[in-house]
């Protein structure tokens, strides 16, 4: 594959910085280029070893830990994706999104309570109108899953129509699922064309491609699917629907980040990353941020390039921050429910 060996590096960053644009230009995608991933091998043992030592190699304590947890809040896609979601349930979630951390804690951290918001609110398509209403004027984007989430096994034209409908309802971000069959059978052209069509259906809405890595299983396939999704124009690549038996893991994330980096080195485009599912604790928020900073550099700690797909993790973060501010451990019953 092509590489730029003359890239100036600092803090591990190998992807060129966004050139001058106020908002980073979107990934236009490209035609399928299998040379960028075929033959690329990922050694699972080595990936696991790297991940096992990430959080023992880096430690953030005290004020730094508090700041890193606040940053995690900024990057959370606060999510509800349940069969019993209702308008009221979504409104409650949106209220939490507007004020993810209790004001006395935020003030205790020396921050402006009005300035702290989550990255987005993520819901099913039919919940989009409720979320859009509840978040009006906040600037918090509404993300909608689409394309027959979570399995994606619907006719393509219906999946594309679902995207268009959600966008029309005001969704600013669309989390699509890929067809696992196309990835597992290595039908890369088919996968590329589907995702490219979805990207087109998204229009101005940013597209996150969910790879459902728990069902792809091998890291080689994860790398290849990541690359195909980016070549097809994904703005973000995302690990999981949260519905697979294995959701976001660090080795899978590491593999996707390296694909993302390699795509950036080849094309100059900066792709975002979203781990989703299974992350419940504040220390996981730290672990994933350490991974981002170590592998890609500081820029990938901003919500335009990094999101957590999580909901219960926010509650644990809030408790940890309260402890930092007050020196006492709080019970979750004292914090507003998401």
């Amino acid at each position, binding site marked *: *594959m092509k*590489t*730029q*060996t003359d*890239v100036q*590096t*600092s*803090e*591990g*960053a*190998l992807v060129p910085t966004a050139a001058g644009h106020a908002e980073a230009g979107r990934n236009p995608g490209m035609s399928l280029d299998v040379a960028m991933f075929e*033959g690329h*091998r*990922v*050694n*699972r*043992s*080595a*990936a*696991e*070893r*790297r991940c096992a*030592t990430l959080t*023992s*190699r*880096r*430690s*953030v*304590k*005290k*004020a*730094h830990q*508090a*700041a*890193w947890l*606040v*940053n995690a809040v900024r990057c959370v896609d606060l999510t509800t994706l349940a069969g019993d979601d209702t308008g009221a349930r979504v409104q409650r979630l949106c209220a939490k999104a507007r004020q993810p951390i209790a004001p006395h804690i935020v003030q205790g*951290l*020396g*921050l402006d309570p009005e300035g702290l918001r989550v990255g987005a609110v993520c819901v099913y398509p039919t919940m989009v109108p409720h979320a859009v209403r509840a978040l009006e004027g906040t600037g918090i984007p509404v993300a909608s899953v689409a394309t027959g989430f979570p399995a994606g096994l619907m006719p393509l034209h219906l999946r594309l129509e679902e995207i268009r409908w959600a966008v029309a309802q005001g969704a600013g971000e669309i989390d699509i699922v890929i067809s696992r069959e196309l990835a597992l059978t290595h039908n890369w052209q088919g996968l590329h064309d589907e995702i490219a069509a979805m990207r087109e259906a998204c229009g101005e809405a940013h597209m996150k491609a969910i790879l459902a890595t728990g069902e792809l*299983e*091998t890291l080689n396939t994860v790398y290849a699917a990541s690359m195909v999704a980016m070549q097809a124009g994904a703005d973000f690549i995302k690990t999981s629907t949260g519905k697979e038996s294995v959701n976001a893991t660090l080795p899978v994330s590491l593999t996707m980040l*390296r694909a993302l980096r390699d795509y950036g080195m080849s094309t100059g485009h900066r792709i975002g990353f979203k781990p989703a599912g299974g992350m419940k604790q504040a220390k996981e928020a730290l672990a994933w*941020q350490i991974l981002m*900073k*170590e592998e890609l550099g*500081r820029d990938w*700690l901003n919500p335009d390039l990094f999101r957590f797909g999580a909901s219960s993790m926010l509650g644990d973060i809030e408790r940890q921050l309260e402890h930092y501010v007050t020196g006492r451990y709080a019970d979750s019953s004292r914090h507003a429910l998401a």
Partner: protein
Amino acid sequence: MSIQTILETMEYGVAPEDDSHARAWLDAHKDGFGHFINGEMTRPAHLFEVRDPARDTVLARVSQGQTADVDAAVAAARKAQPDWAKLSGHQRAKHLYALARHVQQHARLLAVLETLDSGKPIRESRDIDIPLVARHFYHHAGWAEILEDELPGQGPQGVCGQIIPWNFPLLMLAWKVAPALAAGNTVVLKPAEYTPLTALAFAEIAAECGLPKGVLNIVTGDGETGGAIVGHEGIDKLAFTGSTEVGRLIRERTAGSGKALTLELGGKSPFIVFDDADLDAAVEGVVDAIWFNQGQVCCAGSRILVAESVAARFETLLRARMTTLRTGDPMDKSTDIGAIVHPSQLARIRDLVARGAAQGATLHQGEAPQGCFFPPTLATDVAPASILSTEEIFGPVVTLTTFRTPSDAVALANNTRYGLAASLWSENINLCLDIGAQVKAGIVWINCTNIFDAGAGFGGYRESGFGREGGREGMRAYLRPSDAASGKAKGSEPAELQTGPAPQIKGAEIDRTAKLYIGGKQARPDSGYSYQVRGGKAVVGLAGLGNRKDIRNAVETASKAGGWGRATGHNRAQVLYYIGENLSARAAEFATRLESFGAGRKSAQAEVDTAIARCFWYAAQADKFDGAVHATKSDFVTLAMNEPLGVMGLVAPSAHPLLGAISLVLPAIAMGNRVVLVPSQAHPLAATDLYQVFDTSDLPGGVVNIVTGPRDELAKVLAAHDGVDAMWYFGSAAGGQMVDRESAGNLKQTWTECDDARDWSAKPGQGRLFLERATQVKNIWVPYGA
């Protein structure tokens, strides 16, 4: 710093480990540390300072061990040894188990002390060193328990002198002390003068656990104290980990002392990245290889060899990774690279790097703070002859060189005096195992590096030393066979050689000429002389007077016969059986030959019969002396392969002219070695008769070479030859000492013994011991994961 500011930079900030408990412990010893002898700390005397290299402050004052201290420690160990060995395995196991548990209970104190003393990052002492220390004591508690069942017929060596380095202070103590105590030995250990503190804390832990007094003795001090241990007559076994330079001195000083010796020395280990490797994984491997413990690791992968086709991308990734390495305060939890252990080591690293740069190397360096720190360094444009390629730097400095093909990679990898470890990166297991077999290294890590476990052997080939630590092979170093050779033997001194014509030779009807046997061909001695072989009464024949050049030719042809080592055990067994068959066909002739030397008929026939039986026994072993799969870490297969040593010099005992030679040649070649045999000087003709047997038994040329002549003169040439990988010498005490000393040149393994110390016609003349001595264990770590 405000949260708002941190949110902008997203720096890690500082995360210092609390060192107050360790400092309180040091404060309690502010009057200085004594030695730990006979279960008690001695009064501090002859104090020297121990410093924290990261802060350049004094941590403690420690006693410089004097000869009298070493004497007292050895005496205490000697006194304690019989009772310690008499304990049941279970009782010793309970003591070792207690040590393991107490190491865990004091784990953080030991980790913080280690980091203060050595400058290594707290992450490493906390997550790697100390857990491995506990693991070693657990593992060896197990060996103590099952020793009699698993390694029967063996007993302890006695009193062990152990000298350990400063790079893994407590871990090296564990590697040495745990197997020694498990086997029933007692110990006098000297920690390195830069880093004695955890050993002293461990002494307190041993006392806390109720380890019987005198079983473990710790004497602190510098090289002089170490010298007193090396030279001490009361020590039965020496184990040393440190530089090749000092290892060589120890080899010379212990020559002929009869002390068992194991050496773990330096390395310049290759790190080979093939074109189908996961390059990101390999980059992270480099971090674990050379930026672990500041590169102060004997098995560090310090020479990156990368396939030319992926070299540019690999270098890009590696240099990007270097920018995220953090060099600095070792007590900070986010530090990757801590302090260099001592300013003198820092000066050495700087000097070597400067010389490498002057020779044309390009340096790529990260950042390091002021003080005793050195930045992570990658050197490119490094020729094989560069000082950076040849010298062990023992710092965070790695070279990068490209190769074209796998065989090119092997040639570069083996282009070194050392042979400790190798790390191979490829997603092709076929390729990995092929290259793993070809690299000269005691440890091979496939798609990983610097992985350690008590259950696997650790130790090197070539000038990286000999002996193994860990696993079953490591236990062997602390045991000796209960029916070991008698220590009271004197050894034979052959009569002076007569090179003039003999009065009259009674022999065969048609004159026979015994020649040398080199490369599968009979060869006249270079000297052009022959010497008289005397029988019971008269001269019975002439033998060639071999010299230096004959040995040179024999070694050269033997080193070219490497295919023998790659033949299957079955192939080698066939040849050995065939030798037995042909020997049997000519049994009467060999018996007559032995009788001509003065042996009685019966004993001559018995010697031939035993020789034939030995052919069968070693043929049987050729495909059965297996390696092992060690149970180590999860998701790893750890293969312990018995590999031949290479070219061996064999000096046969004087008595038993046929059986003596056969008893050495057979185990050596059964395991795939090639040999240069110096047969009985007095009666070499039984051995030279053998070459006709070899010729008719499909033995490839060069596998066995025979040079007759002056025993000790020829032995000296062999021992001093860098192309000879091991020496077995059975002769006189003085000759054995000479062989040990001369072998220090390339640190070849030696087995020197007086030739009348064992009964060659009985059980001690044959057995697994010979096979173990004819092989070295290579541990290959193969991780798996779909």
